[in-house]
C-alpha cells in the first residue's frame, strides 16, 4: 500500500517537474514542451507544409498496441485514473482515446487486418465546420485540434466526426502534462504531437513507438519527404473516401 502511494507520489513529482519546466517556455495556446535536442519554432505556422501520415497496415502485427501506449504516455493519457466509485466497464467507454487499434475483416474475402485509428486531420474537417465557437480549428500546416480555452463542451464535433476520433473528458483532472493540457468538460483528439512540431522535432510518438515501422509521418507538400515518397511508391487509401475530406492520414493494405 505505502509502496504504491510512494510510487504515485514520485510519478506526480516528476510530472509536476516537467510541467514547471515546460510552462516556463510556453506562452499562448500552444504550450511547448521543453526539449534540449530541438529548437522551438520561431516563425508562425504556414501552409507551406501539410503534415500527414502513412500507415502500412501490412506491417501492423496482430495484438500489437505499442503506438497506443506510446501516444498515451506522450500526451499524458496514462495519467488519468478512474474516478472513485465508477464502474470499470462504463469508465472504459468514457475514458479518452487519441489512438486505438481496430481489427477489421473484409465482408467478401474474409481478409483480416489490424490498424491504428486516430484523428485523420481532414483538409475539410466536419468537426471544425460544426464547432459553434471555433474551438475546433485547422492550423495552416494541416493539424486539426481543439483550443481548450474556448471549447464549451457541446460535443457537436464528436457528433460530426466520421471517424469517432474525438474524446470528451468526463472526469476531474488532477494530473496532466503541460504539453497536452486537458480539462474536465472539454473535447480533445490526436494533434499529431503538436508540441513536437512546434519544437522542431520531426516524428510523432506513435511513429517512434512502432516496432514494425508501420507509421511514416512528415510533410505531404515536400515531394522529397519520407512520407511523400512512400505514398508515391505504393497504392494507399483514405478511410471514407466517399466523404471527400482529403484526410491527412492514409492507409496502405486495406
Amino acid at each position, binding site marked *: 500500500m505505502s509502496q504504491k502511494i510512494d510510487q504515485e507520489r514520485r510519478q506526480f513529482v516528476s510530472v509536476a517537474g516537467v510541467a514547471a519546466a515546460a510552462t516556463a517556455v510556453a506562452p499562448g495556446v500552444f504550450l511547448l514542451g521543453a526539449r534540449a535536442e530541438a529548437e522551438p519554432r520561431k516563425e508562425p505556422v504556414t501552409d507551406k507544409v501539410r503534415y500527414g501520415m502513412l500507415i502500412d497496415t501490412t506491417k501492423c502485427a496482430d495484438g500489437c498496441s505499442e503506438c497506443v501506449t506510446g501516444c498515451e504516455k506522450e500526451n499524458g493519457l496514462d495519467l488519468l485514473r478512474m*474516478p472513485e466509485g465508477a464502474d470499470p466497464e462504463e469508465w472504459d467507454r468514457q475514458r*479518452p482515446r487519441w489512438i486505438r*487499434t481496430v481489427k*477489421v475483416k473484409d*465482408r467478401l474475402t474474409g481478409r*483480416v487486418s489490424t490498424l491504428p485509428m486516430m484523428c485523420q486531420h481532414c483538409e475539410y474537417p466536419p468537426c471544425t465546420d460544426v464547432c459553434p465557437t471555433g474551438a475546433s480549428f485547422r492550423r495552416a500546416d494541416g493539424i486539426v485540434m481543439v483550443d481548450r480555452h474556448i471549447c*464549451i463542451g457541446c460535443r457537436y464535433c464528436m457528433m460530426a466526426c*466520421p471517424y469517432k476520433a474525438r474524446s470528451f473528458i468526463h*472526469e*476531474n483532472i488532477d494530473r496532466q502534462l503541460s504539453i497536452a493540457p486537458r480539462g474536465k468538460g472539454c473535447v480533445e483528439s490526436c494533434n499529431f504531437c503538436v508540441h513536437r512540431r512546434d519544437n522542431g522535432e520531426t516524428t510523432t510518438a506513435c511513429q517512434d513507438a512502432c516496432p514494425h515501422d508501420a507509421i511514416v509521418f512528415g510533410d505531404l507538400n515536400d515531394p522529397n519527404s519520407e512520407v511523400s515518397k512512400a505514398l508515391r511508391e505504393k497504392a494507399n487509401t483514405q478511410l471514407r473516401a466517399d466523404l471527400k475530406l482529403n484526410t491527412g492520414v492514409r492507409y496502405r493494405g486495406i
Partner: protein
Amino acid sequence: MKKIHYREWGIESPRYWGLLAVLGVLLAVGGLATLYMEHEGHWVTGMNNQIVWGVPHVFAIFLIVAASGALNIAAFGSVFGKKIYKSLGRLSGLLAMALLVGGLLVLVLDLGQPSRLIVAMTTYNFKSIFAWNIYLYVGFLAIVAVYLFTMMERKANKYYPAAGLVAFVWRLILTTGTGSIFGFLVARQGYDAALMAPMFIIMSFAYGMAIYLLVLMFTFKLDGRPIGDKLLLRLKNLLGIFVAAVFYFVVVYHLTNLYGTENHEYEAFILRDGGIYTTLFWVGWVLLGMLVPMGILFHPGLGRSRGAIVAASVLVILGGIAAMYVIVIGGQAFPMAIFPDKIIIESGFHDGVNGQPLHYVPSLPEFLLGLGGIAVALTATFVGVRLLKFLPESLADEVVDPHHG
C-alpha cells in the same frame, strides 16, 4: 364575435402557491442534479465517448421544437387572419417563450463547460449551424416578446399583423435550424437527410399543439373559465391533422431510406433489431404517440370527450419524447460505417464490434435535469398568466363564435 376580455389568472392563492411549490421542488431537484453532474463531471451520467448526447438532449430538443410549435396558434390568428385563434394568441406567445427558455436551459446546463457560455455568445464560427441557432433562439425570444406587446398594448395593436408575420417566418427558420443540426451530419447514417428539417417543423406543430391544449384546458379549468366545445373541437382536429402529418413524414423518411441499399442496416436496426430503440419507435412513437391519439381524436364519439382529448395530448407528448430518444440516441447507438465494406471484429474504442450497437443507459440525474427544464417552462407560464392578462375571461362558444372566424 364579441369583444374578448382578458384577465389575470384568478385562482385562490393557496392553490397557486401550492402549484408553484410542487414545481419548485422539481426545480430544486433538477438544480441539485445539475450541480452534481457539474461538480463530478459527466462520468456520473450514462453518456460516454460513444454516445455523447444523452437524455438531456432528448428533453432539450423536444422542448425547443415544441416551443416553436406552441407559437403556431398565435400565427393562425395573425398570419391567416383567423379571428377565433386571435383570442388564443397571448397564451401561445407566452408558452412559446417559456418552452424555449426551459429547453435552452437544459441544453446549456449539459455543456461540459457551461461557465463558458459567454464564449459561445461572443466567439462565433458562422459555418456552424449551432452558432446560427444561438442567434435564432435569442432572436425568437425578442421577436415573440415584441409580438406579445403588439397584442397586449392597444397603442401597438397596429403593428400586430407585421409582428405576427415576422414571428411566424422566424419560427419556421428556427425549426429548420434545429432539424439541420442533424441533417448536416454526414458522418452518421441515421441523420444526414435534408428531410430532417421539414420533419422537425411538422413535429413542432404537433408537440407544440399538444402542450398548448393541455395548458389551456388546465389553466381554464382551475380558474373556472369556460371553453366552448366548438373551439376545443377545432383545436383537437388540428392536433389530429398535425399528428397525421408527422406520421406521413415518418413513413416517407423510412421508405426513402429503405430504397437506398446503403441504409438497409440502419433501417433494420431501428425497425427490427434495435432493442430499446425499436420498442420506443414502434410502441412509443408510432403506436402510442401517433396511431392511438389519431384514433381518439378522429373518433366521432371519443373525440368529443374532454378526458379523451387530454389523454390524446399526453400521448402525443410522450410519443414525441420517445421520437427524440430514437432520433438522438438511436442515431448514435448505430455504429458508424468507418469501413463500409468491412466488419470491425475488435476495437480499443468500442466501435460497434460485429455491428453491436453502442452502449448507453441513462442515469437518474440526466432525467432530473430534463424534468427541471419542463418545470422551468411551466413555472414561467403559470407566473406569467397570474401576473399579466394572458388568458381570455371566456372562450365559450358565444364569445368566440367560430362561424364568424
